[in-house]
């Protein structure tokens, strides 16, 4: 294998993990935009999605497409429920208070999964059976192709949704000023619920791709991609949809390249170092807008 092929393969590795980060980061960003809170339980919604798909296919023996829809619905409903129970009562509290509740929610979901499914990893056979292809000597696994396609499609759809539809502009209005949004006739509670539903549905998709990649389900599976995606969302400019995408993919690629060509041991340090440098140069993230504050 020559250097070119090796670099290409490393790039593809990064691109694939990066797109999964991106998908999760999209959910983070949307929820952040509207609730002004870092939803620490978001990563655990991925975990619930993984178990839901597993249960759908085994216990309920649903056909694959139905199982996927089932997973998405479960997560969306879970997202709404979390918001209603744990965040809504705190609408008037500081965003930090909600952050802590979100952390509590994350513990809660993890311990529930632990009690129900135990800690032993459940093996899960990938539902993606597409064969990989080889271009110019570079192996491109099927899952990489699917992941990239799905992520790109979702990002485009989401961007259109937010910028072109009425519901999308309602979301943006609510994220700016809830009271004023209500004065426009926007149902604030429903808009917030909808945002959580969409964010969680994205997490479900991410969860499905994630377990197809790693083929194992544990109660803590959401923690790592959760925090990485959070970093990605901020890197790209939190609140920005294309930002989440760019941030996720960049994070994946930097991670993979520094592991491959600099030092596996310092990969994390390098990834975070890049993040710090980028934010110092561009304090609102790559594509984030600096909030206009007129003096």
């Amino acid at each position, binding site marked *: 294998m020559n250097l070119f092929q090796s670099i290409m393969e490393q790039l593809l590795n990064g691109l694939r993990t990066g797109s999964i980060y991106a998908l999760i980061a999209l959910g983070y960003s949307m929820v952040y935009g509207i609730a002004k809170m870092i939803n620490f339980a978001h990563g655990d919604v991925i975990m619930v999605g993984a178990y839901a798909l597993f249960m759908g296919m085994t216990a309920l023996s649903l056909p694959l497409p139905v199982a996927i829809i089932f997973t998405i619905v479960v997560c969306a409903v879970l997202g709404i429920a979390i918001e209603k129970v744990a965040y809504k009562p705190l609408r008037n509290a500081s965003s930090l208070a909600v952050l802590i509740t979100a952390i509590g929610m994350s513990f809660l979901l993890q311990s529930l999964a632990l009690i129900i499914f135990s800690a032993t990893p459940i093996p899960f056979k990938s539902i993606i059976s597409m064969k990989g292809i080889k271009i110019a000597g570079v192996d491109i696994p099927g899952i990489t192709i699917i992941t990239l396609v799905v992520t790109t499609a979702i990002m485009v759809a989401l961007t259109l949704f937010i910028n072109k539809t009425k519901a999308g502009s309602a979301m943006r*209005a609510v994220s700016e*000023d809830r009271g*004023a949004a209500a*004065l426009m006739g*926007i*149902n604030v509670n429903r808009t917030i619920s909808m945002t959580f539903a969409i964010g969680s549905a994205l997490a479900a998709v991410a969860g499905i791709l994630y377990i197809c990649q790693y083929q194992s389900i544990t109660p803590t599976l959401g923690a790592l991609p959760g925090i990485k995606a959070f970093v990605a969302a901020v890197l790209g400019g939190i609140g920005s949809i294309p930002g989440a995408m760019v941030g996720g993919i960049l994070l994946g690629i930097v991670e993979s390249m520094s592991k491959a060509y600099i030092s596996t041991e310092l990969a994390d340090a390098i990834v975070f170092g890049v993040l710090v440098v980028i934010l110092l140069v561009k304090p609102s993230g790559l594509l984030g807008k600096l*909030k206009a504050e*007129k003096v």
Partner: protein
Amino acid sequence: MAMLSVKDLQVYYGMIQAIKGLSFEVNEGEVVALIGANGAGKTTILHTVTGLIPSKEGKIEFQGKDITKAPGHKIVTYGMAHVPEGRRVFANLSVYENLKLGAYTRNDKKEIEDTLKMIYQRFPRLEERKNQMAGTLSGGEQQMLAMGRALMSQPKIILMDEPSMGLSPIFVEEIFKIIQDVAASGTTVLLVEQNAKKALSIANRAYVLETGKIVLEGDANVLMNDESVKKAYLGE
């Protein structure tokens, strides 16, 4: 029958009672002014009427419908618009997007465009700046935007909270002309103003508020010549 009627309203902020049981009415086609000193409770009343804060006691009716407990977004669909204190424009959305949101409850695409044109006519500055982020507009420009945004919903009644605040003298004139225009075109107006003189000069009727209670009410012309009003609110 009154278009908007408020009866025995009481509103609390935590332990503090801001509105201490007051009643008033606005009839269709009227311009009614609400005047009073800082902290008298004018803003609180408007917020309660449009459902942004809950009332503890009392009843609010709009066109015969009880809206006391209705959520804010519902009330808008009944035909009530509110130009809030402090403008509350969506700072990170463009002027155009702000205006479009004003028509959120409407579905008639074509007519929305017409209303937009009409508003651009009234406020040419908004058309010039339609792609600027609302947060970077000057104070006066934001006030125009807030007013334009409220008008986008083609309301039956419009509640305005100190629309002349921070505006240049020429524009104060202009705004009051616009308010008169709006009223003339058939929209009922409930106007809260510090600029009592101006407010009384265009209003049909007025209420004078003091620490959460109505102390005086009547014909605007009569109040304008009332000695106590003159002394307390007109600075004469």
